[in-house]
């Protein structure tokens, strides 16, 4: 009978999952999925969607026309 050497294998799966979730949260919070959502919505309404660049600039123009940062 061969004895297999004992190798400690840390279970990093939960850590990877947690890091992935944080990354996804940050991407969502930064609005990186906004364009995809917008295209989906525009197509559902039968409108021609803007290009990513047009959408990005138009979102910024809109966002910064009202108070977005507090004292």
């Amino acid at each position: 009978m061969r004895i297999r050497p004992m190798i400690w294998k840390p279970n990093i799966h939960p850590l990877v999952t947690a890091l992935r979730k944080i990354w996804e949260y940050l991407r969502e919070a930064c609005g990186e999925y906004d364009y995809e959502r917008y295209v989906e919505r525009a197509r559902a309404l039968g409108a021609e969607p803007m290009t990513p660049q047009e959408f990005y600039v138009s979102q910024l123009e809109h966002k910064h026309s009202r108070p977005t940062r507090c004292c």
Partner: protein
Amino acid sequence: MRILKRLFWMGVAALGALALGLIATRRGEPLNAVWLVAAAACLYAIGYRFYSRFIAYRVLEMNPRRATPAERLEDGRDFVPTHKWVVFGHHFAAIAGPGPLVGPILAAQFGYLPGTLWIVIGGVLGGAVQDFVTLFCSVRRNGKSLGEMAKDEISELGGYTALFAVLFIIVIVIAVVALVVVNALKSSPWGLFTIAMTIPIALLMGIYLRYLRPGRVLETSLGGFVLVTAAVIGGKYVAESAMLARVFSHGAEAIAWMIILYGFAACVLPVWLLLAPRDYLSTFVKLGTIFALAIGIIAVRPAMLLPPLTRFTDGTGPIFAGKVFPFCFITIACGAISGFHSLISSGTTPKLLSVETHARLVGYGSMLLESFVGVMAMIAASVLQPGIYFAINSPAGVVGATAEKAVATISAWGFPVTQQTMAEMASKVGELTLFNRTGGAPSLAVGMAHIFSNFLGGAELMPIWYHFAIMFEALFILTLLDAGTRVGRFMLQDLLGHFWKPLGRTGWYPGVMVTSAAIVGAWGYFLYQGVVDPLGGINSLWPLFGISNQLLAAIALCVCTTILIKMGKTRFAWVTLAPLAWLVAVTMTASYQKIWSPDPQLGFLSHAQRLSEQIATGTVPASSIFETHRLIFNDRLDAAVTAVFALLVLVILFESGRNWLLYALGRKKPVLNEAPMQLSRRFAAEV
């Protein structure tokens, strides 16, 4: 299980009471900052668990089955149902500005006790309630703004009052925060270089985001952060180089002009080029640094060297004049209760909530977190030796222009400090001097560097931490300046468009230039006035800012109270009426004292009177007569601005009170302007 829960909450209450008791009664021996953290955390937990729940379900009768505007009006742009923690992050990033960091630092002149109690209690019973109820009201009205709600629910006059209040507050806020940056960067080549570098870094980020990877904010911000950190480290070599240090060393007036020009440029340049990338960068740095500060305080557990109460509660403080009531409550606005938050709560946030009841976490919860930021700032100020704290924050006009005079004056107050201690401290953080660095930012940076260097890197890294803290503060203050100037311009264009249509068009360049110049000129004037003020500017400008911010809070609470009464919840109107009554008492007392106090250090008019008498009696040298006339004019202008703020509070109070009375007497039928109830898609299958 129920018993365990009860025991848990009883334990939280007992720990909170013990911590508060220690904070309030400890004298002599320095208190550990952990007790402040424990008291705040316990009160926040109890406030959130019980008080916000009471407001949500008993007072507002929130309904998770009711479709929110984000669901009903979903358009993929403005109205987007969003996960509650993402909305929480957005909302917190929007409300957390320089106020909760700088206000507590300044109010620490009274000792740490009054400010801490106000931050925690005011946050739980006032600020969080205002944010939460305003958010709820806006959600029920398709995401309407505070001004629109004031117009619909109170009267047209109430709406216009809110509009003017917002415009005024934007001007004053920008001026005062810009003054904080000027005082942090004057004669500091390291600091000025770092902040100057953030401009090309932001431009680079803007071009990358616009043309190369549109919308890839996360990777761009991380790249920007690496570059900014490199700029902080590179600043050391600038400060050490005789030639470069000269290029980046400027006095307060020169830096004020640079900021004014920068503000104008940021306002007229395309938003994607400078404003937006700076905003991303500053949000990352801000949230990361606040998180790191919390970890640092818990890891280091510093002792609080500032006494709980100082002799300056009597109103003779060097940083700003006035007794602990009302000025502690005016100085700390953000962190306890801030009217500006109501603009955020009735802006983007209500259009993102996917479930109505999430307003509790987002509105109430994020304000508690902001309040905790205020507590951390108070701790950062309190870990400094009191003598050092006062030497940094006192203007030359009060303690004397030379180091010798300053240490003598401050030591005579009972806070011993020597020239050698100050020189060593300045050398430790890589500055030439720390005397008269008013505005709060430098002392906060010294406190943060003290905490961070104890946690990571030791004394070696102290100058890097100090300049990192300065960069962190200046970066998001300048972002507020960019964003505020632009919003002010839009509001002014909207207003002027009623008189001449082209001025209202945001795409017409002459109109953009004229209105931008008007807004920048308005805050630039107050900034310049603060810079040349012999008393340091903070003494006159910070109370104006506090009064204007609390004025906006009073408007928001009037709107909320009116809506509660219209909802048939008059018996619960005390929830918003109590903080409103407190704010009115504070704002009116402070306004009265700032205008009419016979003490020239406090009252604008008596100060102007004293200067006039000095000119009349010939005690002012001929070379300073023009300057003195300008100071007199500024005093009178500040008095007039304070009077306008107080008048606006009275107008909105009168309008609201009149309506409440008419409802009570049955002479006017309360009409609730809510969007009709519609069942959420999530529950539609059940029907």
